[in-house]
């Protein structure tokens, strides 16, 4: 019987020395790439090259390590991801090109995730077990136990990962996830993640939620649970690694709550403007990388410039790509045998 661990919210930063410099540089690279992508998406929205923006700037420190630690592939031997709409950094960390997100923003026929049918940030990639992101809040928490049960049966070390925000945990689907993941004798290999930015759209979590930490709710189900500083990529990496190893090996659930920032507001519906009063995980990571001599300011500036140019070039390319044909609305209502 696994004893639920006491929740300890680690506010202090893990030292950079706990990870090899190579990995720190790689994480930083992906975090910057993801941020530049999101900023480009916002710019596309603002200049009329998309109808709606929602995404994950502010969650890179958590979402990049998540992607790096996932076992990528198709079928129950690999990890399934049931994400919400703030997961771009995870996709990039898995090796996805930013151009797909740009195409989805521009709703082109070439959009690899939905063919111009769905909003930005609504990824889907069967080849890598990325289940389609769907707009209704929290439904992914009701669905994820299904892939986890298939994996429990299959054996091996593939796990299911589900992510979503804090406000959504008020939905019954979050409770469903805890219940279905911890049925006695049928515990599931599922990593239940909540990225807590302390906001719904405009509603502050503190005004609606009496629980101290969302992760406390795992305790009632004997689910190992933890709240971590998701703005620290080193902490995130180490905690995710530990949680994933537990789920992979023990074939039991783990509830991980990561405290993150929301740097451009909820979505384009609230303006998508930079907010100055929340911690910026890239800024603080870069200060540490520089202070500890892992990267120089000049190197980091050059990296950002490189991605800015690359992604701007991709956006120009996407701009000229065709929209889907209206007659295609009847395509793929049903599955065509491949």
């Amino acid at each position, binding site marked *: 019987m696994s004893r639920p661990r006491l929740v300890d919210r680690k506010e202090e930063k893990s030292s950079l020395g706990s990870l090899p410099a190579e990995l720190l540089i790689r994480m930083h690279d992906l975090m910057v790439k993801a941020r530049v992508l999101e900023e480009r998406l916002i710019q596309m929205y603002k200049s009329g090259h998309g109808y709606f923006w929602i995404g994950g700037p502010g969650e890179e420190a958590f979402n990049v390590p998540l992607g790096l630690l996932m076992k990528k592939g198709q079928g129950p031997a690999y990890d399934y991801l049931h994400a919400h709409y703030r997961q771009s950094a995870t996709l990039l960390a898995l090796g996805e090109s930013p151009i797909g997100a740009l195409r989805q923003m521009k709703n082109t026929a070439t959009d690899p995730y939905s063919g111009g049918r769905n909003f930005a940030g609504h990824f889907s990639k*069967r080849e890598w077990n990325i289940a389609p992101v769907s707009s209704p809040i929290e*439904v992914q928490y009701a*669905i994820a*136990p*299904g*892939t986890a*049960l298939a994996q429990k049966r299959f054996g091996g070390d593939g796990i299911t990962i589900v992510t979503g925000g804090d406000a959504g945990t008020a939905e019954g689907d979050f409770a*469903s996830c805890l219940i279905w993941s911890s049925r006695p004798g049928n515990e599931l290999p599922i990593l239940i993640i909540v990225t807590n930015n302390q906001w719904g759209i405009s509603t502050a979590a503190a005004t609606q939620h009496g629980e101290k930490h969302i992760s406390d709710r795992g305790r009632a189900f004997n689910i190992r649970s933890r709240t971590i500083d998701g703005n620290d990529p080193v902490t995130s990496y180490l905690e995710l690694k530990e949680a994933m190893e537990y789920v992979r090996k023990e074939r039991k659930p783990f509830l991980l709550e990561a405290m993150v920032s929301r740097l451009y507001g909820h979505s384009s519906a609230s303006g998508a403007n930079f907010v100055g009063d929340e911690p910026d995980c890239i800024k603080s990571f870069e200060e540490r990388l520089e202070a500890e001599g892992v990267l120089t300011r000049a190197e980091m500036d050059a990296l950002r410039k490189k991605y800015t140019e690359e992604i701007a070039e991709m956006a120009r390319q996407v701009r000229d790509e065709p929209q889907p044909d209206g007659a295609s609305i009847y395509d793929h209502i049903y599955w065509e045998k491949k």
Partner: protein
Amino acid sequence: MANMAQAIRMALHYAEENLGLTDVFGEDVGPPLGGVFTCTQGIQSAWNSPLDERGIIGMAIGLALAGQKPCAEIQFCDYIYNTIDLLKIAGNTCWSSNGDWNVPMIVRTPVGSGIRGSIYHSHSFDATATHIPGWKIVMPSTPLDAYGLLLAAVLEDNPVMYLEPKALLRIKGEELIPGEPADDKMLSKMIDAPLGERSKWKPQWPALEKYVVPIGKAKLVREGLHVTVVSWGRTLPLAAKAAKALAENEGIEAEVIDLRTLWPYDWEMVSASIEKTGKVLYVNEDTEVTNFGEHLIRRTIEDHFYKLLAPPRLLAGKFVPGIGLADNLEMASVPQLKDITDAIRALAAEQP
């Protein structure tokens, strides 16, 4: 002959043995009960779930995404309503992902009136189900069709909503399911769980055979020249009975079609019949406002307007908030034999 509950059970057994069905689950679906209507008794892959309809549909979607072949049960369709956005997701996943993912799952749920189920055990679901694109929706009215449609559902690559008219679950069939013993006492001994203690009981399955009723094909139940009657589920046998009596006693020849699949439906058969008779009555027991029969009427008018000899008619459930418990209340709320007989007679008598 098997009743519909036994037919469903035999289909699930055949499918888990031969067609890759992996999970039959829901509230009280596994042992010891095997379903509140006994449809899942003795099924190897049957298991009990938490009392959580959203969790059940979510689980089925997840299993299907991961390559399993689940058949989920919602104990009564009255309790499926809080899962509608998940049903929408099952129905839109293929389309939303532009053909990348499919969701091969089945949802079985008992529907309709006929057991004096009062307000929350008498709902229909066909009108609502047909508002959710991306699903295939079937509703058998005989045990043999129940068997054949369930095998077809298991073979489908898309989500299938399998509606079980609960008034018909205990009605014996008139046709043998391939492999079923002719003696129904023997069948009962073989596959019905004993009452009371049954922890050591195991079913003796007959040597069942594959029999598939293709999704999308209606059945011509009775030929006739004067009126077309299209129905499904509980009201279908009543329509057939009414037509038989009217033919014998009043010389009214009604053609009766069992739609069997609500989506995608067999317009070819219905259309050909309307061409012949010029008069059509749609009968079902879901509430009449935005009823699926209304869609069929629109289609009838658009395709057959100049050949119609009377306005197309719909006989359906009354648009009231529920079906009351008392006999009189239930009978006043949903079509009964007499209502159907009267409606066919009136339509046959209509002159342009």
